[in-house]
Structures are given as structure tokens and as C-alpha cells.
């Protein structure tokens, strides 16, 4: 096996059987974080992901490297760990972070604040004082108490029925970029990252798991990856995967829905309280605003979770109570993820621990397989370090962890938007600024593409915006195999028009870059459009419905694509949702969970001597 570059559109394994030190199942932020950590220690790493990187909860969260203030009441450990690691992530990926100042408004009764409400505001302040203790860990500012007038001056869309507000300082991040940059760094340190490869079966010698058989969804090739240790970091899919090896553990998977608005509708992040007392956020995120999230036990289809009518109404109800002007703005889509929350009996969804845990299935008689459960975006690096420490110990590797100091790829070099804007046409400054946010120092080779063909400097996705150069570049260098993968790396089609203007065009660029057949281009277009459509469907109201009508006209009236998409689907046996078209018919069914819970591997403590 040789080291491969992430530029290869084809899978990077050159033989049908390959030996590794560790095989990681799952291309979420945890799996990619573990891959990066292990690869940087010199271990031979393979990562297998059945879909794209950050497809699940890693990409469907609130996009915050926050300190977990929500958990302060009942889970202080998670709050402290989150704040500490938020500080590390700021150091290794400064280009991906953006400050989100929050207002936490407190509603009062319409006839005037009651004593209880005044006491609540005082209590809230004590609560935020407690949180201030952790803020310096993540370069956060302490809270400020605002009168109602001050809060309304800062955020005119707020309900006038507020008693006051408290500020809270947090950090936003592009979770897709965070995951992808971890994967790219892993690949550049020798890891093999196989996206669109699904686990078919574990390879066993006796009871011991010694490898995995995987199948490539694009082409159907099967590969055997052997390793003494297999890490199951498949998020909410974890129990199913463990069961395939004869092990098991339980989760309390929780479905989380967000609604996206077409542009930024508030100046600040706003903390909301739902009808049931749950905390939610309305916050600026990238070029839009998001509001959410829900948290409900979920046992449905993990591969295709959908926002329901009740969930949309529940979120809007909370948002209206605090920010009544929200109905003036245009919802552009929803997104849904399933949290791999740790299992507990008799706890409300909201109160479930956001800590992570590791299960060594050796205790169940299945040595060689370790499952990762729980966790949260802000603590991914910490989780990866703990897992990698354990792997390194078992494999006799003594290299230290470097993931808290070594910059992610985009942070390794200067970022100078002003100079770049002068060097390349000024009218593309916004595109350059957004590219620099996403790719950091690695924007430079993308910008240089426009020297060869100036047309590549033009925006393909106008909403975000994303230039043709960025799209072509990401296809070549960031583990892109399918058209939908481009979206998660560039935010192409994530903006206000939902791909109306750019998806056909991007499919043509993808076809050119990968030399795919026209039929494949149509399949990819169908999958990428459907991925957008299912997110939009629950909120096709007002201007969003009008935009979708134009989207339908663009592709099916003007482009007359429908009969040809169907023909391509028939030709290539695609189900239209971009999944499993080459999955083997004989894939083993998920086995029932074993009655016995496996032993918990205690997480190794975080070294205290780090700044």
C-alpha cells in the first residue's frame, strides 16, 4: 500500500486487500479527527465512510464550537471540556471560526414583569457568572446584563415583552469544513480515506475482529481492509455496526431539526425557549440564519430523517415568541441530524449527557473492536485524542498527540484577503473572502487557477458565492467523489436559491473534472437536487415556494431533464436518493442487540498542563 493524495477521484486503495494499524468506521468529525490524530502519530490508518464526510450529525448541528452552557446545570464536566477544546480548535483552525455574540432575552408577562420573572433574571445572571469562569478557556468575553431598551436597540426584531437580556459570547464554525480539513490532513499524513464505501462484514479470526470487508458504492468493487484494531465511530449507526461483529451497545439517538433562513435575519444570536422550556437558538450562520434545534428520541430511518410538520411548528412557535418579525423572512430549507447520545433510562432527551464513552467489545467476547459513543462537535478533538492515546498504547506507538497545536491545512500559511483581492479582480472580493474563510491559506492555489482561465474567477454559485475555480479545486483536492460532496466542502447550493442557478452547472464541472459519463452526470444531478429538495420540502412557503417553482422550471421545463434523469436511473439502477445503488443484495442484516452491556473503557484524562 502506498500513500495516496486526496486528489484521486478513485478509491485510494490499490489492492483488494490491505493492512493497516487501525481501520476507522465513520467519516464524521469524530472518525476524521481520530484518523488525523493517528495518522500524525505515524500509524497506518484507513477510514471507511458509507456516504460522504460529515453526512450525519457532524454536519447537521448548530455549527458552534460552544462551551456547552446548556449542560452547566447538570453536566459541568462537559462544559469545561467543551470550553478547553474550543480554545484548541481556535488555535488549529482560526480561519473557520466566527464570533457569535448571543442575547439571552427574558420574556415578561404582557402586563408587566412579575416578581418571579425578576427573580429569574437575577438567577440567570448568577448562572452566567458561573459560565464566565470558563469563557477565558475559549477566548470568550464575560456576560453583560442589558435592560429591555438596550436589548431592543441592539436587536429591533425582538419581542417588546422582554424584561431584559444577558449577553453570551460563543463561536460559530463550518462543521463540514472542520470535518473535511481533518480528513484532508489525515490523507496528507498517509491515511486512506474511502468515502462511499460501506461495511459489508467484519473479518474475524476466531472471535477476534481482524478487518472489514467493504464495498464501493461507486462501481461495486469489494475490498478487504485488515487491522488489529477497528474503531466504530459511526455515530447513531454505531449499535448496528457493533451488532454486525456480534457486539453491542445502546444509544438514545435524538433527532435534531434546524430551519435555515435565506439571509441573516438578526444582528445577534438569540437564545429562545420552546413551549416545553427547552432552549433553542436563532443565530447567524455563514450567509444565512438558522433556528433550532429540536431534540426527540428517534428510532426511524437513520439514512433519511425528515423534518415533520410538528417540528417545524414547534421551532417557529418558539422563534415567534422571542423574535416576532421572523414571519417576514424567508425560510429556505431544513436540515436534520440524529445525535448519537449516550443511553440512559428515565431521563428527558434534553438532559442526556453530551459526554462521550468508549466501549471495548472485548468484554463481550469480540476483541479488536472499540465503539465510540456520544460526544459533541466542540469536543471532537478531545475525543479523538483519547481514542488515539488508547490505540497508540496498545500498538506500542509512543508519538505524542499534536492535534491541539498543529494547524489544520487551511491554517498552515498566511491568509490575506485584501492582497488577494487586489491581485485578482476586485469585483470578486466577496467570493475571495468567503473562499478564504473556507479554505484559508489554501485559497491561493484556487485563486491561481483563474490566471490560466479568467472565467474560473466567476461565481458558479452566486448565493454563497462559490467561484468555478473553488469548485474545480475542491473536486481535485478534497476527497470528492460525488457531486453532493462538493456542497459540503464549498456550501455550493446551500444558499438562498437552493441550487436553482448552480446545480446543473456544477454537475457539468464535476463531469469535466472526473471524466464521468453523461449518464453519471445525470445521476449525480438527480441525487444532489433531491438532497436539496427534501430539505426544502417541509418549508415550501411564501417566497421559498416561488423559488422552488423556478427551480422546477429551470431543470424540468427549460432543461427538460426529468425523462433523461429517469433514463439514467434505469441505466445505472439508482434509487434517486444517491444511496446504495451498488449495495450487495446479500449484505448481512443487522442482528439483535445482545442483552449484556459491554464494559466501559474509562476515557484517559486530559493533561492539565496545556495552555
Amino acid at each position: 500500500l502506498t500513500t495516496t493524495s486526496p486528489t484521486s477521484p478513485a478509491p485510494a486503495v490499490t489492492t483488494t486487500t490491505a493492512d493497516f494499524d487501525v481501520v476507522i468506521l465513520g467519516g464524521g468529525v469524530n472518525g476524521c479527527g481520530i484518523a488525523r490524530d493517528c495518522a500524525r502519530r505515524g500509524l497506518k490508518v484507513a477510514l471507511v465512510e458509507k456516504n460522504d464526510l460529515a453526512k450525519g450529525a457532524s454536519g447537521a448541528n448548530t455549527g458552534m464550537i460552544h462551551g456547552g452552557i446548556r449542560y452547566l446545570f447538570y453536566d459541568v464536566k462537559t462544559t469545561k471540556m467543551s470550553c478547553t477544546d474550543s480554545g484548541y480548535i481556535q488555535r488549529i483552525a482560526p480561519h473557520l471560526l466566527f464570533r457569535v455574540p448571543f442575547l439571552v432575552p427574558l420574556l415578561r408577562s404582557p402586563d408587566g414583569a412579575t416578581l418571579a420573572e425578576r427573580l429569574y433574571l437575577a438567577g440567570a445572571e448568577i448562572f452566567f457568572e458561573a459560565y464566565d469562569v470558563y469563557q477565558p478557556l475559549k477566548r470568550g468575553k464575560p456576560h453583560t446584563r442589558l435592560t429591555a431598551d438596550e436589548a431592543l436597540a441592539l436587536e429591533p426584531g425582538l419581542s417588546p415583552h422582554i424584561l431584559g437580556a444577558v449577553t453570551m459570547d460563543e463561536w460559530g464554525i463550518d462543521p463540514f469544513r472542520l470535518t473535511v480539513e481533518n480528513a484532508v490532513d489525515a490523507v496528507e499524513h498517509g491515511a486512506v480515506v474511502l468515502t462511499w464505501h460501506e461495511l459489508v462484514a467484519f473479518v474475524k479470526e476466531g472471535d477476534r475482529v481482524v478487518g472489514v470487508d467493504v464495498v464501493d458504492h461507486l462501481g461495486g468493487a469489494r475490498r478487504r481492509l485488515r487491522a488489529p484494531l477497528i474503531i466504530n465511530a459511526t455515530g447513531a449507526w454505531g449499535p448496528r455496526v457493533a451488532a454486525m461483529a456480534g457486539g453491542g451497545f445502546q444509544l438514545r439517538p435524538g433527532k435534531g431539526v434546524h430551519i435555515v433562513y435565506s439571509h441573516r435575519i438578526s444582528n445577534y444570536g438569540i437564545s429562545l425557549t420552546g413551549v416545553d422550556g427547552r432552549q433553542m437558538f436563532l443565530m447567524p450562520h455563514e450567509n444565512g440564519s438558522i433556528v433550532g434545534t429540536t431534540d426527540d428520541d428517534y428510532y426511524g430511518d437513520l439514512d433519511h430523517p425528515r423534518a415533520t410538520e410538528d417540528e417545524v411548528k414547534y421551532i417557529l412557535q418558539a422563534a415567534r415568541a422571542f423574535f416576532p418579525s421572523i414571519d417576514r423572512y424567508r425560510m429556505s430549507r431544513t436540515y436534520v441530524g440524529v445525535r448519537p447520545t449516550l443511553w440512559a433510562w428515565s431521563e428527558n432527551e434534553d438532559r442526556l449527557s453530551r459526554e462521550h464513552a468508549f466501549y471495548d467489545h472485548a468484554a463481550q467476547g469480540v476483541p479488536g473492536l472499540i465503539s465510540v459513543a456520544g460526544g459533541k462537535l466542540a469536543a471532537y478533538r478531545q475525543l479523538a485524542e483519547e481514542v488515539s492515546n488508547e490505540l497508540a498504547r496498545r500498538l506500542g506507538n509512543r508519538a505524542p498527540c499534536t492535534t491541539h497545536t498543529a494547524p489544520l491545512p487551511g491554517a498552515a500559511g498566511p491568509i490575506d484577503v485584501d492582497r488577494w483581492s487586489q491581485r485578482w479582480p476586485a469585483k470578486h472580493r466577496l467570493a475571495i473572502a468567503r473562499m478564504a474563510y473556507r479554505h484559508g491559506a489554501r485559497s491561493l492555489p484556487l485563486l491561481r487557477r483563474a490566471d490560466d482561465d479568467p472565467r474560473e474567477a466567476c461565481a458558479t454559485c452566486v448565493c454563497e458565492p462559490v467561484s468555478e475555480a473553488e469548485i474545480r479545486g475542491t473536486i481535485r483536492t478534497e476527497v470528492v467523489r460525488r457531486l453532493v460532496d462538493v456542497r459540503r466542502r464549498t456550501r455550493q447550493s446551500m444558499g438562498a436559491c437552493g441550487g436553482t442557478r448552480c446545480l446543473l452547472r456544477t454537475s457539468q464541472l464535476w463531469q469535466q473534472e472526473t471524466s464521468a459519463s453523461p449518464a453519471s452526470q445525470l445521476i449525480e444531478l438527480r441525487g444532489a437536487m433531491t438532497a436539496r429538495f427534501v430539505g426544502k420540502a417541509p418549508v415550501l412557503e411564501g417566497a421559498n415556494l416561488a423559488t422552488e417553482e423556478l427551480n422546477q422550471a429551470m431543470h424540468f421545463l427549460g432543461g427538460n431533464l426529468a425523462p433523461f434523469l429517469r433514463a439514467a436511473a434505469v441505466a445505472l439502477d439508482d434509487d434517486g436518493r444517491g444511496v446504495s445503488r451498488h449495495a450487495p443484495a446479500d449484505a448481512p442484516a443487522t442482528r439483535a442487540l445482545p442483552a449484556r452491556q459491554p464494559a466501559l473503557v474509562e476515557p484517559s484524562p486530559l493533561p492539565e498542563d496545556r495552555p
Partner: protein
Amino acid sequence: VTDVAFAEVPAAVDVLVVGGGVAGLLAALRARRDGCAVLVVARAGGGTPSWSGAVDVADDRVDVTPAPGGTGGRDALDRGGPLAAGVARMVERLPRHPYARAGAVDDVAADVDASLRFLQEATAELGWVRRPDGHNHVLATAAGTVKRAALVPASQHLDVAALPDDAIVGVVEWRDLAGFNAAPVAAMLQWVGGLSTRGLRTVPVPVPRVFAATSVFPTTTAFARHLDLADHRARAAAALRGVVTALPVRPTHLLTPPAWSRAPLDAAAVAALDEAVGVPTRELLGLPPSVPGGRLVASLRRACAAAGVVVVDGVVAGIDGGGHPAATSPRAGRRALATLHVAGAPRTVAAGAVVLAGGRFLGGGIVREHVAREPLFGLPVFVEGEELGDRFVGGLVADTVDGAHPLFRAGLLVDAALRPLGADRHPPFAHVFAAGAIVGGWDPARDGGAMGTSVWMGVRAGAAAAAEAR
């Protein structure tokens, strides 16, 4: 484009048309032909400016069969038979389609045919081409697919089903134009067009920058505006000629992005361009925002101006009596009183009949903000025969984007005369008609024949409104 001064808005007309797309403008022209005084209120945008250029009438979307190995759509070059047969198949397949609600199939087909002739006459400057046998053309789109259509302007008339077997079709890529690469379009056309199965070839024809000093990499719309300046079109044609002449294998036909001109190109203008390039050169069907769509709207508005139809850019803010059954008073006393906003100022207009042609969601003829409504008369919006109301939109769409979505068939329910129906399935107003995408029961994007359906409804509603108003 006509700019009507505020003072020219009449205080009373026979027919008020709400909507300045193809259905509304044709309704106005048709009512005017019967001698009516007609006012059109056109809001910006809508579906017609996104029009591809061709008029599909009864493209009943026979599914394309992939050839073995996934290398071509074998049925893509099928013309689908004569117009009347296509209309009959649509009526059979789509029982809620407006064609199916308008009477006997043969009568509807004849009426559709007449409406196409009406369009051809009204906008003759576009140089419409219709096959003598009445069958469809098979035309290439800018996406690289093919589309069946009965009528096509001269500048877009390249019937790929009529090409000789030794044809070599060049797809032109202007380096002055951003966002269009010929190679993937040519490859797609070869595959989906089933051209490979006949041995035809497509080749990309990149043209180096012609306007290096002035170009800012425009869209098709801006590129068309650019070509309209001075001698730019001649320079572009000469550059294209130079490229084609130097190619080792010379294309027999050229397809270019639909950006030759913002002004109409009649048969003589197209012949002159062919002469300049040296190879027959036609425009691909457009995608939104589309230059051919702009050409059609402009052409129809010129026809309106010539015929004496007043077209104003504005918004109908409300119609007196809208939503009140009392407005269905006997003929003599009945007048709709519409409040318009033109150039920001309110104006009241009395009308004997109203044609609602404001489009669906995009045009604003139907509004859905958690509850669906027709904003002017408060008419109910139907989907699959039931009122849409506040039903959850997420439950009215298919799982995949190209599936059949009931939501995009929502709209007004109409009787055979195109009068919209109330909740009791009867028309509450004798003097109100609807045409175009505001009428439900069909999905313009999916059912095929969208432009023809709107043309037909527009002409039909205009005739009905004229009869009612006078």
C-alpha cells in the same frame, strides 16, 4: 417595451388583465381583436421571461429508454405524432389538466391549433417555424437534453431529429461568456439525444475571447446585450467563422448559447448570420433567466402597443367586491373596481371583466404563507381536487426531486370557460376568468406542453372575457 405614463391609465376598460406573461398578454390581444378596451397590469418577473424559446404543446413525455450499456436515449428523437394525437394522450394521462376540462378532445385540439396561429400572427417578427405535418420539432436545450416543441423561432430552429446521419454538430463555447462549457453539453447531447445511436457526432467549438477589452465575463443576458452593440455581432460571427474554418473536422451545424441578440431575429436575420459564420448556426433552447423569454415578452408587448392595448408595470392591490358573492350581481350593474399601484401611486379602474393571469407561486397569482390563497378575489386554491388551505406542504411532494409533486399542480379550479370555481365548485363570478399557471390541475414543469397550454388558455380566456364584457 411600452412605458405607459400614469396619466394614460384609463379609468374604465372592458377587460382588465392581471399579469403580463404570455397568458395575460395573449388574453389582452385576443380581447382587443374583438374590439374591447383592455388594460394589462404586469408585475415584474414571472414564468415567461424564463421561457426556453420553443412552444411545446403536447409533448406528452414518453419516457426515454436507455440503450444497452447506458449509452443513449433511443426514444428521444421521437416526434410524438401530430398535435391532436398528443393533446388526446395528455387528456387521457392527466384528467385534471386544463385540456381535459375544456370539452371534447377534438374541439380542444382545434382550439389549441387556432391559438398557436394567433400567437404566430401576433409575434411574426420572431420568424416562427412550424412543421408542415404539424408534428413536433426535436430541439436541443442548453442543458444538453432535447425537447419536443410544435413552434420554434427561426433563430432556434435546428431539428436534431431531421439531421442527416453524417451531421457533425458543433456546440459553441464563447470565452467571453461565463458559465457555459461546450464539452459537457456536447457530451450530454450525444448521449441523451440518442445521436450516437444514429452515428451523429457532437464536438465542442471553443471561441477565444473576441471582446477582451470590454468583456466582463457576462451571463447570456448581458452577452446578448453586448452583441447588440455596434458591430459586435458581426465580429463574433467572424471570429466563429475563423475557428470553424480552422477545425480539422468541420461541423455541419452549430449550436450556440441563446444569446445572439435581445432583439427578435427573423428568418432573414438568421440567414445573414449563417452567411457570416459559414455554417448554419442556431441557438440552444434557453434556461432561466432566458434571452428568448425576454424576446417573447418584448415582442408581445410591442404587439399590444400596436393594437392599442394599454400595458402598465404595476401591481393590482385589490379588487372591490373580491371575495364577496354580492359581486355576482346581474349583468347590467356589474363592474369590477380594481385598485392599482402604478409607479407607487394608487389608481382605480373599473372593468367589465377580469382575466387572472398572474402565474402561480412565482408570479404571485397564488400566495402560500402557511395558508394558500388567491389574493384578489379570495378564491380557493385546490390541489388534487381538495382545498390546499393550510395542509402541510411537506406532505404534498414526492421523495425525489423529479417525482410527481401534487403541490406543483395546485391552483384555481376552472370550468370549461376558464371561470374559476369557489369552494362549492361553482363559479362565484360570471365576469372573472383565469389563464396560465394560476390554473391548477397541471404541473407546467413536468406535464409537457407548458407553453402551449398557457398560450391556449390565454387566447381562450381573452375571447371569453371579451364576450362577457361587451
